[in-house]
């Protein structure tokens, strides 16, 4: 036997498959098909945790997603996961589970001292206690954090893999109970693409716990099996088991979490643990069923108090006796189902306590006929037993049900099966902003009007609780949804079944206790957050009357179960206390997720080296082979510098910089953005997007341009070349290429649709390598058929030609101030041409240089880098680049430059900066002041944007943005550093530190 409480027969468990597991370190045995909760109950384990605030002993309450108490820590670190509902965890061999929020054990928990201090822990306790003094919050927080939360996080990174996928369907059906199966069959038969989602590993929903149910005259589970087989055979139907639809977003976009391997004892390596489905449906049918509502009575949280439907599940589905002697406490007919099932399973039913004056309904009648002891017009007013129910006291109710009368009678029992009615599971419907209405007869909120196109609710979720109605509504909704997608309704008739629900009922929101409310016994509304009816009343007394405020003040419904069992009771109690009609109090907002989801699914496989693309140039492998270190420029990975043995970064960069100026350097510049511009209006277009004039640029000539945003701030810069009469090639900064193309397309398509211009990105069409240095021409001349003589190819000119036998574009442009050629060859030849240049360049000591050396070389020349010298708040005038801003034509950003603010003398302006001690290199980002005060704050003038050791100048150089900087040339400023040093520096006459006349370009 697997547990002393296992029934000898029945259930949907596999009796020949015994599984061992541990709970709190102790070994138990269960059966395949058990939930963890069922396996614990089979072994007589009811006490599974301590409550959040009072550390009261708690037992298993439900058999489903609504479970507030049986939240366990499952698995070993780092695979451990907290707050898993034992009612939803499938038992697997070797499973390890432990109680949470209890120390040293659930049986003896030190924190239970909190329950002695309960009257000092009312709702709002934290707000009231920890408000003053504000400075003490950090101390308080430390303790609160430790006391808060139930489980433990893994201490190391999650070793499991997760996955994500997009999916599409015509009809999404959520829930595979009778309504959902009927809906999926109807839509599937019509030919629609259907996704049927079921959180359980078995289809059937409530039918799994009701063996007596019949559909079309046969056992209901036979019909379920036939439905499952038919759905599996329909090619356009996908059934996702162990999958929770946790979120409904706009336009029928849904989030689903599929548990792929948790139920496997040895998860295969190639499968993800869980998968997030991002599903777009045309139509959705919510068949989520209903959740039984507990009653709010004194000490209703004692282990052994369960919902009546949970009792039925444990007996019928899992063949487990949840107790030996039970009291059923109900206010409607459905509670009698538990009494009948227990009777049949050999569990003694001591009494059925019914708040209704006259027990009525088909199940009540059968119980009466069986001769069960029924106490009508009565209620359980007290529960005895701390770690397990021992007995209850039952008394008659007065006419209003507000007080008890007469002498209570004592009934010994170890199980209380209670039913306070049923709440349709409207969460997804409401997440999608569907409107609810109050159904007075059934005592519950039911869907009224879907607020998004193509959403339907069917079955118990729609307030149609009878099996016949579930099947009918499901079939109709499924067929209707398919028809709305253009699939003719199949003519098959809806399956037939008996149709009785749980009426009549007597809806009492609060059952009187022996003492006045709040004294001694506790009436729990939200068991997970330890919120009682007395707490709700207190919140109302303190002035919170909106249900949203009551929720936040008391935290009712704010735990991981989001009040699936308690919310309507809370609303009922509040309505009664305010003497308002319940629907006038209203419901709180339903938000995703329906049940908690693990973070891993949002990361999916986008982790480690798949986190983000790493863009590689055609010569990337060469850089790797030659020891380059890389830096990220946007998503590009660029060679940063190439250290030789024994070199640090400083030494390597100095060598690269020096070699380039002395002889020859080569740079992989492939990442530069390249935009091909064609059309008769191309010149006009360029004239409008750049600050300088473009109408007179000759064919074969290059020009530097500065691009502004509408606000007049520098957006990008680069060289554009006129390749042909109506053909230009624009280059952009590496990180900005996509943004610039989008900016240009935006203008072309929305502002200037009349311009005949086409833009095409050709960034990746070419491998780009820059030869730079006094020997650049000598080397290139050996490798090309193009005429490189200064007359034929002067500075800022272009020629086509072959380089190393490959068709190439040669641009004589320079970012280093040296004689430079930027060579574009087809990307696939990039590696070969690069290697050819390296080989031929050996005699010139050709030196590959990386981005760091490039930065030093350009800073020596005072050339800006957009994004380093600029930050979106810098105009060309601030950069002292007025020479490039046309006064005679219009361009994007021009009008902004005329704003008064742009002419203010204290704008930050770009200047060169030379430290008084030439050996000292300023840190980039250092703040600059006029006068050093003993301590901050002191008025700041600006900051250092670029700073390097310049081997060619033999000293440090820097660029800085300084308030009124252009008028400060020759002034001494100070850079006070975090380490206490103060570095004096002088504003240079010019930011061009090397070859100010540009001799070397010739």
């Amino acid at each position, binding site marked *: 036997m697997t547990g002393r409480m296992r029934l000898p027969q029945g259930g949907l468990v596999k009796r020949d498959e015994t599984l061992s597991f541990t709970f709190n370190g102790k070994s138990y045995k269960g059966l395949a098909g058990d939930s963890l909760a069922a396996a614990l109950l089979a072994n007589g384990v009811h006490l599974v945790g301590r409550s959040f605030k009072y550390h009261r002993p708690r037992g298993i309450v439900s058999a489903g997603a609504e479970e507030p108490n049986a939240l366990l820590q499952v698995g070993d670190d780092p695979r451990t996961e907290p707050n898993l509902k034992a009612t939803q965890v499938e038992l697997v061999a070797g499973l390890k589970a432990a109680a949470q929020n209890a120390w040293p054990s659930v049986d003896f928990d030190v924190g239970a001292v909190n329950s002695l201090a309960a009257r000092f822990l009312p709702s709002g306790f934290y707000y009231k206690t920890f408000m003053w003094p504000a400075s003490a919050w950090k101390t308080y927080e430390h303790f609160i954090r430790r006391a808060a939360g139930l489980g433990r996080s893994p201490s190391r990174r999650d070793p499991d893999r997760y*996955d994500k996928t997009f999916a599409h369907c015509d009809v999404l059906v959520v829930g595979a109970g009778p309504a959902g199966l009927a809906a999926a069959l109807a839509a599937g038969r019509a030919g629609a693409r259907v996704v049927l989602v079921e959180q359980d590993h078995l289809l059937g929903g409530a039918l799994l716990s009701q063996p007596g149910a019949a559909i079309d005259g046969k056992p209901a589970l036979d019909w379920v099996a036939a439905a499952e087989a038919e759905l599996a055979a329909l090619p356009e139907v996908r059934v996702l088991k162990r999958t929770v639809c946790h979120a409904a977003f706009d336009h029928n976009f849904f989030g689903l979490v599929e548990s792929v391997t948790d139920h496997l004892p040895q998860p295969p390596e190639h499968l993800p643990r869980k998968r997030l489905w991002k599903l777009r449906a045309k139509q959705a049918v919510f068949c989520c069923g209903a959740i039984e509502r507990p009653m709010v009575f004194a000490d209703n949280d004692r282990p052994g108090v369960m919902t009546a439907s949970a009792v039925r599940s444990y007996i019928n589905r899992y063949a487990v006796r949840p107790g030996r002697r039970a009291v059923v406490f109900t206010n409607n007919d459905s509670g009698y189902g538990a009494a009948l099932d227990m009777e049949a399973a050999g569990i003694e039913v001591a009494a059925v306590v019914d708040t209704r004056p006259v027990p009525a309904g088909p199940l009540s009648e059968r119980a009466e006929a069986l001769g069960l002891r029924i106490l009508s017009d009565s209620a359980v007013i007290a529960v005895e037993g701390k770690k397990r129910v021992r007995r209850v006291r039952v008394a008659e109710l007065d006419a209003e049900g507000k007080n008890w009368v007469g002498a209570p009678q004592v009934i010994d029992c170890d199980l209380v099966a209670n039913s306070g009615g049923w709440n349709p599971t409207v969460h997804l419907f409401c997440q999608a902003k569907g409107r609810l209405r109050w159904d007075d007869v059934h005592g519950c909120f039911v869907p009224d009007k879907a607020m998004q196109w193509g959403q339907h609710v069917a079955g118990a979720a729609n307030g149609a609780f009878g099996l016949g109605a579930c099947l009918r509504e499901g079939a109709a909704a499924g067929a209707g949804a398919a028809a709305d997608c253009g699939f003719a309704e199949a003519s098959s008739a809806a399956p037939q079944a008996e149709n009785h629900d749980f009426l009549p009922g007597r809806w009492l929101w609060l059952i009187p206790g022996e003492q006045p409310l709040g004294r001694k016994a506790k009436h729990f509304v939200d068991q997970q957050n330890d919120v009682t009816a007395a707490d709700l009343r207190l919140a109302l007394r303190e002035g919170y009357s909106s249900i949203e405020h009551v929720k936040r003040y008391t935290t009712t419904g704010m735990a991981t179960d989001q009040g699936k069992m308690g919310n309507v009771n809370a609303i009922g109690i509040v309505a009664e206390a305010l003497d308002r009609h319940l629907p006038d109090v209203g419901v709180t907002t339903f938000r995703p997720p329906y049940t908690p989801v693990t973070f891993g699914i949002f990361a999916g496989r986008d982790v480690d080296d798949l986190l983000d693309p790493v863009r*590689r140039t055609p010569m990337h492998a060469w850089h790797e082979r030659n020891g380059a270190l890389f830096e990220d420029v946007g998503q590009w990975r660029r060679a940063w510098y190439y250290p030789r043995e024994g070199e640090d970064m400083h030494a390597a960069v100095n060598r690269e910089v020096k070699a380039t100026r002395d002889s020859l350097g080569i740079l992989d510049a492939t990442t530069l953005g390249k935009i091909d511009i064609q059309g008769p209006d191309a010149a006009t277009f360029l004239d409008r997007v750049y600050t300088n004039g473009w109408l007179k640029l000759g064919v074969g000539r290059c020009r530097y341009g500065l691009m502004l945003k509408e606000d007049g701030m520098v957006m990008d810069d680069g060289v554009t070349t006129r390749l042909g009469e109506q053909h230009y090639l624009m280059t952009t900064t590496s990180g900005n290429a996509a943004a610039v193309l989008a900016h240009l397309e935006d203008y072309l398509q929305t502002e200037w649709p009349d311009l005949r211009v086409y833009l095409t990105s050709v960034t990746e069409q070419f491998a780009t390598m820059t030869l730079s240095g006094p020997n650049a021409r000598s080397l290139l001349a050996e490798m090309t058929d193009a005429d490189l003589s200064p007359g034929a190819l002067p500075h800022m000119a272009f020629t086509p030609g072959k380089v190393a036998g490959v068709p190439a574009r040669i641009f004589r442009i320079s970012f280093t101030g040296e004689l430079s050629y930027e060579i574009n060859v087809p990307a696939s030849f990039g590696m070969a041409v690069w290697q050819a240049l390296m080989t031929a360049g050996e005699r010139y000591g050709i030196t590959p240089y990386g981005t760091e050396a490039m930065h030093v070389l350009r800073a020596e020349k005072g050339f800006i880098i957009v994004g380093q010298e600029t930050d979106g708040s810098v105009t060309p005038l601030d950069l002292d680049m007025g020479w490039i801003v046309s006064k005679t034509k219009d361009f994007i950003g021009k009008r902004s430059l005329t704003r008064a603010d742009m002419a203010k003398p204290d704008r930050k302006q770009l200047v060169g900066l030379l430290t008084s001690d030439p050996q000292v290199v300023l840190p980039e980002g250092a703040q600059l002041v006029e006068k050093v005060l003993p301590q901050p704050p002191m008025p700041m003038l600006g900051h250092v944007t670029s700073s390097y050791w310049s081997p060619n100048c033999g000293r440090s150089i820097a660029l800085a943005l300084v308030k009124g900087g252009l008028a400060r040339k020759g002034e001494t400023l100070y850079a006070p550093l975090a380490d206490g040093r103060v570095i004096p520096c002088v504003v240079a006459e010019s930011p061009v530190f090397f070859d100010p006349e540009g001799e070397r370009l010739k």
Partner: protein
Amino acid sequence: MIESYLRQSALDYLGLAARAGDAPAGSAVIMAEKTLPAAVNLRGDKENPAFAAAVLEALGLQLPLEPNSVAAGDGLALLWLGPDEWLALAHNAPPEAEAQLAAKLRAALGDLHAAVTEVGESLACIHLAGPRARDVIAKGCPLDLHPRAFGGVGHCAQSHLAKTGVLLHQVGPENNGAPAFDLYTRRSFSDYLWRWLEDAGREYGLVVVAP
């Protein structure tokens, strides 16, 4: 003189040829790099009959006007990319084919306002096929590739796949529910996309094959 064998595809350094084997029968999904496509991006005014006529003259293909449709001819496909944008594609072509294709188009278009731009060098092409090919793509691409929604063979679309832009072209028939796709991405993203797809396909036993 550099020989054409010195050309390198974007994924050359992965040494895929050495890894490629024969796909076992019944493989759920196979993947290959199609090397070095020749491709020309074409912009022009579809309302101008002379434009379509010039394209027909140069390529022998009717300009596809239906969004995401493809005109296919002998070794050449013309993909609709946008209301004024198309892509002419050829595989297994010699290195000079791309320039020749562009030259033919330019010659036919003459003075018409149009743009012909060689872009094949900027592309990488990953071929993905098999009964689970759609499932692999769906992991990162929000498009609905179901034949009812996508249109099946001879249809293309631009979207994203994981964190890269892609142009999808369904090239293979349904063939017992085993479609084949060519996925074009920018060359520099192909290493990431290849590794991402291989990882995505692991669940289905993805096999790397020769192109």
